[in-house]
C-alpha cells in the first residue's frame, strides 16, 4: 500500500499495461520526453523508449486518426488529447469514425483504443481549457466513457479501458491530478460500467462524477453533521456503459435523487439519469429529482467567477437541505 497522486496513478496504470502488452503504445503532444503538460506520463519514455511513447505535432486530427488506424490494424494505442476542449478539433474521429466503424462494416473493423484527456475546471484557464465535456462523448453510440475520481480508480479503470475491445474515452480531471489516495501494490484491474457507492446513506442519493465526487462526499458529511440528513453518494465513474442498477437501487431505497454535474446545464449526464429514474422508479420518489450543475454559460477565468459557476460543497449542501426541507 502506498499513497499516490492521481497524476502518478495515470503513469502507473499506463506502465502496468505497457509492461503486460507490447501492443500498447502512447501517442500525444509533449507526452514523451516532456512527460506531458500535466506530468501524467513522466518516466514512461525512459522506461519504454521512443517507439512506444511518441510525440506528435499539434495535429489532433492526425493523432486521433492515426490512433484509430493503428487500433484497427492491431495495436492498442492510448492517445492523449491534452485538454478535453481540444476534442472539438478532432470531433469527426470520435463522432463519425471511431465509434461507427464496427457497426457500418458489419463487425469487420474493430477499434480498441483509449483516448485520455484532461477534463474539467478549477484551474482558472478560462472557457477553452476548462470544460467538462463528457456529454460530448456520451451521446455517441459505439463509445465507452469513464471518468475516475481517485488514484486507485485511475489505475484500475485505465487497465480496464486498455484491455477493452471497444474505444474508450478516459476523462482525467485536471483539478484532481495533485490529489492523493491509498493504492495497493501489485496489478490493479477494474471493470467498466460499474458505479461505486462511496458513502452509504439512507435519506437521499447523490450521484457525482470526477471532481464532483469529493465535493459530494464533503457535502454529505456536512449535511449529516449539521442537519442530520444522511446522504448516499455514488461515484458514477462510467457513463457508457451506465450502471443504472446500482443507481436505481439506491434511489428506490432513499427516495430522493440529486445529481452533481460540472458540465453546463443542458444535456448533462444527470439529465439522462434523472430521466431514467423518473421513468423507472417514479413511484419510489418522495420529491422531484434535482440537478446541481454549472449554469449554461462558458466558464470564466477569474477565481471568484469560476468558483461561483462550478458546483461547490456549499451549493450542494444548500440545495440538498432546501429540497429535503420542502
Amino acid at each position, binding site marked *: 500500500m502506498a499513497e499516490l497522486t492521481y497524476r502518478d496513478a495515470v503513469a502507473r496504470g499506463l506502465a502496468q499495461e505497457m509492461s503486460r502488452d507490447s501492443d500498447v503504445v502512447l501517442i500525444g503532444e509533449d507526452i514523451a520526453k516532456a512527460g506531458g503538460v500535466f506530468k501524467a506520463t513522466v518516466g514512461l519514455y525512459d522506461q519504454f523508449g521512443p517507439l512506444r511513447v511518441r510525440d506528435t505535432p499539434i495535429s489532433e486530427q492526425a493523432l486521433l486518426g492515426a490512433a484509430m*488506424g*493503428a487500433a484497427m490494424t492491431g495495436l492498442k494505442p492510448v492517445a492523449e488529447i491534452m485538454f478535453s476542449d481540444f476534442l472539438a478539433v478532432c470531433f469527426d474521429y470520435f463522432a463519425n469514425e471511431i465509434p461507427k466503424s464496427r457497426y*457500418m462494416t458489419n463487425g469487420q473493423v474493430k477499434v480498441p483504443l483509449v483516448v485520455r484527456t484532461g477534463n474539467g475546471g478549477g484551474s482558472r484557464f478560462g472557457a477553452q481549457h476548462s470544460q467538462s465535456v463528457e456529454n460530448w462523448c456520451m451521446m455517441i453510440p459505439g463509445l465507452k466513457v469513464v471518468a475516475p475520481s481517485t488514484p486507485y480508480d485511475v489505475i484500475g479503470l485505465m487497465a480496464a479501458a486498455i484491455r477493452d475491445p471497444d474505444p474508450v474515452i478516459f476523462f482525467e480531471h485536471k483539478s484532481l491530478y495533485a490529489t492523493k489516495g491509498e493504492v495497493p501494490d501489485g496489478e490493479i484491474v477494474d471493470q467498466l460500467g460499474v458505479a461505486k457507492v462511496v458513502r452509504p446513506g439512507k435519506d437521499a442519493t447523490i450521484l457525482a462524477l470526477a471532481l464532483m465526487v469529493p465535493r459530494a462526499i464533503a457535502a454529505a458529511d456536512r449535511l449529516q453533521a449539521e442537519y442530520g440528513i444522511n446522504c448516499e453518494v455514488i461515484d458514477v465513474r462510467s457513463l457508457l456503459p451506465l450502471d443504472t442498477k446500482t443507481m436505481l437501487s439506491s434511489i428506490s431505497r432513499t427516495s430522493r435523487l440529486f445529481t452533481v454535474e460540472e458540465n453546463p446545464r443542458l444535456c448533462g449526464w444527470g439529465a439522462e439519469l434523472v430521466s431514467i429514474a423518473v421513468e423507472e422508479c417514479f413511484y419510489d420518489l418522495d420529491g422531484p429529482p434535482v440537478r446541481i450543475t454549472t449554469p449554461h454559460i462558458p466558464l470564466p477565468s477569474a477565481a471568484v467567477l469560476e468558483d461561483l459557476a462550478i458546483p461547490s460543497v456549499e451549493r450542494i449542501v444548500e440545495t440538498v437541505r432546501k429540497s429535503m426541507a420542502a
Partner: protein
Amino acid sequence: MNEEAAAVSPSQETQLRIYRTLVELRETGQKAHDLFLQNLVKGTVHLSLGMEGIAAGCAAAMKPGDLTFCTYRGHAHTLARGTSIEKVLGELMGRDNGLLRGKGGSMHLTSVEHGVMGSYAIIGAHLPIACGAAWRAQYKGASDISVCFFGDGTTNIGAFHEALNFAVVWKLPVVFVCENNLYMEYTPIADVTAVAQPAADRACAYGLDRILGDGQDADAVYRIAKTAFDKARSGGGPSLLEFQTYRFSGHSRADPAKYRPAGELDYWRDSRDPVKIYRKRLLDLGVGENVLAYIDSETQRIVDDAAEKGKAAPFTSTDILMTDVYADGGSAWRN
C-alpha cells in the same frame, strides 16, 4: 523506355489483369447506375466511371496484405482489390447478401479480408487513419503499405495537411493518391484552390516530390504507383501522387453535372477513356482481339449474374439492426 522505367512497368500478364479489372470496374459502375435508375439502389451512389485507370493501375501495383483506404467514391478501389462484385451490388441494393449486409451502403464499402480497410464519407478523415495503419506496420516491422485514395476537393481540408506533415515526420509507409477529376462536387477545383495542381503543387510544403501523372493511362499509373509503393515498403517514407482524371457522370446520382462546359465530357469520353485507351494498347502490343473479347463478355456475364443474384436475394434481415455497436456483438449501453 529506359531501364529504370522498365523495372516498374507491368508485365503482359499484369497488363491482362489490369485490363480485366478496368472492364470489371466499368461494367459494375454502369450496372450500379442502371440499378439506381431502376429504383433498385436507394440513397446515393458516387460512380468512378471514367476514373477506373487509377484504381486498376494502383491495385495491380499493390501486394496482398497492402491496405486500401478510400472515400465514399470507393466502389472501384474496393473491387480492384478483389472484393466480390455480387456482394458489392448486393450492398448497394440493401440485400442480405450485401458486403456489409446493408449496414454501410454505397459510401462505406469495406472488405478487410481483401485489405480494403474502409470507405470514408467524411472528406479527409481517412488520411490520418491510413497513417495509423502505416504506423502499425512500421512499429511491428511488417512489410505492408497503406494506400489512401481521395479526390481533389480533399486537398483543401485540414486533415489532408495534418496527415501529410505527420506521415513525413514519422516517415511512414503510406502513399497518398489524389484523383483530380477537375471538380470538387459541383465546383471546378481551380475556382477554389490556390495552386493549379491541388495535390502535386502542395507536395513541396512537406518536403515531398511533385508527382503528377495521367490517370487515364493505367500503365502510367502502375509505373508511378509501383515506384512510390516500393519506396514506402523499403523504408523511404510517404509519397503524394496526383493523377489527372475525369468522371463521366455527376458527383453523385443527385447531380446531372450541367455545370460542365459543352464538349468537355465528349472530349474525355471519346479521347481519354481509360478502358478504350488500354484496350487499344493491348491490341497494339499484339494481344488478340479474341482474348480481349473473351474478357469483355465473361466480365459482362459475371456482372449481370451478380446483379440478378442481388435482385433475387432477400432484403437484409432486420435482426441485425441492434448488433455490432460494441464488441460484445450488441448495443447495450446500460445494465
